[in-house]
C-alpha cells in the first residue's frame, strides 16, 4: 500500500506557545491511522495543523502533492474532510442544509441527492430529523450529522477528532462500526484522534502515541494492542 498522507517534521504554535515539536506520521491509501494520547498531548492541534487552521511548518504531502501552504478551504476541496473537535455543526441550519453544505464544492447535483440518501442509510435517525434545526439534535445525533456531512464531500481522507467524545458506550460502538464499514466499503482512509485507545486500536492499522507534542511510539495497531508494557504505561488499560 502507498501512503495517502505523509507528514514530516510538523511544528505548530498558538501565538508564541509552541504545541507541536516535529511530528512525523502517515496514513496509507485505504488505511486507518490513529493518534493516541492524553489531554493536551497535541492531537487536536495536529489535525488543525493539517488543515491549515493554525500556524504550522513542516512537510505535508497528500496524494503526492504538498498541502503545507494551502488554505483550509483549498485543503477541503482536495478531498480531506475534517470532523472537528466540537463537531462543526451549523447549529442554526437544518439537518438537510448541513448535509448539502458538506457537498457545497461539488457540481454533480444528482449524485449529491443520492449521497444524501446514502447518509440517511447509514444514519436513519438523521432522515427523521432532516427538517429540524441541527442545534436541537442530541450529542450523538450531531456526531452522526458531522460524519454524514464529511461523507458528502466524497472525501479520500477523513480526519476525526475524538468521535467518541460525550457519547453513550452503546452509541460509540455503533459509530465505530459504521466508521469501519465506511473504510472497508467506500475506501475512505481515516485519521482518528482518540482518547479511547482500545476502541481506536481495534479500528486502526497504524498507531502513533503522542505526548506533549511529540510522537513517543509508533507501530502497527495490532502490536501496540498486544504490548502490555505500552498499554499499561501510556494507554492506561
Amino acid at each position: 500500500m502507498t501512503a495517502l498522507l505523509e507528514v514530516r517534521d510538523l511544528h505548530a504554535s498558538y501565538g508564541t506557545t509552541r504545541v507541536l515539536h516535529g511530528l512525523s506520521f502517515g496514513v496509507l491509501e485505504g488505511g486507518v491511522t490513529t493518534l493516541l494520547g492524553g489531554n493536551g498531548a497535541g492531537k487536536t492541534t495536529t489535525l488543525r495543523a493539517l488543515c491549515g487552521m493554525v500556524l504550522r511548518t513542516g512537510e505535508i504531502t497528500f496524494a503526492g502533492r504538498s498541502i503545507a501552504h494551502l488554505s483550509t478551504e483549498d485543503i477541503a476541496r482536495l478531498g480531506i474532510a475534517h470532523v472537528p473537535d466540537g463537531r462543526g455543526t451549523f447549529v442554526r441550519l437544518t439537518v438537510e442544509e448541513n448535509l448539502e453544505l458538506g457537498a457545497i464544492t461539488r457540481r454533480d447535483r444528482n449524485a449529491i441527492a443520492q449521497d444524501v440518501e446514502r447518509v440517511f442509510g447509514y444514519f436513519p435517525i438523521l432522515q427523521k430529523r432532516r427538517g429540524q434545526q441541527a442545534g436541537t439534535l442530541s450529542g450523538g445525533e450531531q456526531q452522526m450529522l458531522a460524519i454524514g456531512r464529511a461523507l458528502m464531500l466524497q472525501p479520500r481522507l477523513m480526519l476525526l477528532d475524538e468521535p467518541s467524545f460525550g457519547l453513550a458506550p452503546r452509541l460509540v460502538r455503533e459509530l465505530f462500526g459504521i466508521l469501519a464499514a465506511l473504510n472497508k466499503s467506500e475506501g475512505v482512509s481515516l485519521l482518528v484522534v482518540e482518547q479511547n485507545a482500545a476502541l481506536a486500536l481495534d479500528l486502526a492499522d497504524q498507531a502513533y502515541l503522542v505526548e506533549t507534542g511529540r510522537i513517543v511510539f509508533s507501530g502497527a495497531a495490532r502490536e501496540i494492542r498486544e504490548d502490555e508494557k505500552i498499554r499499561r504505561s501510556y494507554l492506561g488499560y
Partner: protein
Amino acid sequence: MELFLQQTLAGLATGTIYACIALAIVMTYQAIGHLNFAQGEMAMFSTFIAWQLIQWGTPYWIAFLATVAVSFAGGVLIERIVLRPIQHAPVLSHVAVFIGLLAILNSLAGFIWDFNVKPFPTPFGTAPLLGNGFIDAHQAGMIAITLLLLAFLYGFFRFTRVGLAMRAAAHDPVSARLVGIRVGWMTALGWGMAAAIGAIAGMMIAPIVFLEPNMMLGVLLYGFAGAVLGGLSSPVGAVIGGLIVGVVENLAGTFIPVIGGELKFTIALVIIVAVLVMKPQGLLGRPVLHRV
C-alpha cells in the same frame, strides 16, 4: 381618521427605505461583525451615478439596473481593497475606516457633482393612486419595489446554493472553511449585495428628499434605528424594524405637536436608546451569549 390612515401609509412607504438600509446594515454586520457607518453614503454615491446616467439620456430603468450592477461591483471592491486587509483588526480600526469611507464618499460626491440640491426623477409619477389621495404613485412604487427585492433576497438565501453558503459562512466561518467554502469571497458578495440594496433605497428615496451629498444622513440614522429595533442578527427583524420606524416617525411628527417636523430626527435616537436599554437583542434578534 383619514389623516391617520394617510400618515400610516406614507410612513410605511418611507419605512420600506429604512427597511432596505437596515437590511444592508444587518447583512454586513452578519458577515463581518461590524456596523458599516458608510452604508448611507455608499447609497448616496450610487444615486448620483444613476442621476448622471439619466442626465446623459439613459432611460430610467436601464440606468436603474446599471446603477445596481455598478454598486454591487463597488461594494465587492470596497471589501476586497479596504476591509480585507484589516479583517482581524480591532473594532476601533473598523470604526475609523468606516468614518473615513463616509467622509471620502461624501466629499467625492460633492467634488464631482457639487453640493447643490438636485431633483431626482421618479418612474412612477406623483399622481394620487386610485384618486383617493391616501397614497401617491411613487410611494406605492417604492413599496412594490421593496417587496420585489425582499422576495428576491428570500428566494436567493433560501433556495440557492450560493445563498446557503453565504448563510453558513456568516453563522460559522470556521466550519464553513472546513467544507470548502471560500469565506472571504462570501463576505465580498455580502458587501456587493448590501451596496446594491442601498443603491435601490437611494434611488427610491431621492425623489422625496432630493439629491445632494448629505441626503442619506437622516435615512441612515432611521435605518440604524430599524436594524437595532429588529435585532442586528435578524434580516427579517431589520425589515420589520425599518417599517415600524417609518410609521412611528411619521405619526409622531403629525400627531405629537411638540415633535412636529423639527424633532423628528430625535425619534430615531430615542428608539435606539430605548431598545438598547430595554431589549438589547431587538425584536427578533438572538441574545449574544459568551461562555466564560
